[in-house]
């Protein structure tokens, strides 16, 4: 089953996105609560970065999320009208000695990289399609 959510790029909609994802993940009957929580976190971070850096929280702009389960994998696609941001190759410039983080959204990107098993980014006529994949743990 595919489910979609389109929201404008206001900060207050981040909670709406988290609630949508949490509800969707429940329909996949995954028992591991922390697993679901981290997926929600990764997508929240991606949307936060997009809202802030690509759309400057402009409520006239919107993104669309789509979730589905396929072959024991969870897929989350984010269609963003802004140009692509290369999540896979982003490296923190200000990597601190003891913590894996940096300023300007780097901590969030680091979280996405650590949580997701696969991130594909397609450029579609100046817009972006982020395709996140996470394998469901066997238990």
């Amino acid at each position, binding site marked *: 089953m595919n489910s979609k959510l389109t929201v404008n790029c206001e*900060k*207050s909609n*981040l*909670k709406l996105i*988290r609630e949508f994802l949490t509800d969707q993940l429940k329909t996949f009957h995954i028992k591991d*609560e*922390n697993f679901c*929580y*981290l997926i*929600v*976190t990764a997508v*929240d*971070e991606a949307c*936060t970065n997009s*809202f*802030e850096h690509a759309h400057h929280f402009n409520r006239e702009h919107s993104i669309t999320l789509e979730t589905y389960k396929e072959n024991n994998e969870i897929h989350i696609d984010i269609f963003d009208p802004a140009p692509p941001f290369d999540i896979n190759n982003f490296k923190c410039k200000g990597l601190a000695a*003891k*913590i*894996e*983080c940096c*300023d300007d*959204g780097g*901590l*969030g990107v*680091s*979280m996405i990289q*650590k*949580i997701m098993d696969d991130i594909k980014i397609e450029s579609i006529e100046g817009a972006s399609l982020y395709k996140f994949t996470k394998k469901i743990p066997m238990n």
Partner: protein
Amino acid sequence: MRIEQIENERCVILRPVGDLDATSSIVMNEKIEQLFRKNKYNILIDCSELDYISSAGLGVFISHMDEIQEKKGKLIFTNQNSRVYSVFDLLGLNQLMTIVDTNETALNHI
């Protein structure tokens, strides 16, 4: 999110209630800076009512760690549920920050 605050002789306990995300992290940042202006550097973050923390929320605490250390203060997290702890663990922050089970245990660190 709202922040409940309890002060005693040894520390200030901040209890965020709800989600600490890109929207509400501004409130937490302002709260901590208010404490700094009052020379209060022993801060206990009681996570018992914290449902969600994003990188923006974590960034607030990370950005104030140096000042707290310079002032010989303590920043201690307590009562984290497994979901919130999983984010600290993911980033290795559990190695860098003081996380204990209860507020009572935290007081032994101050």
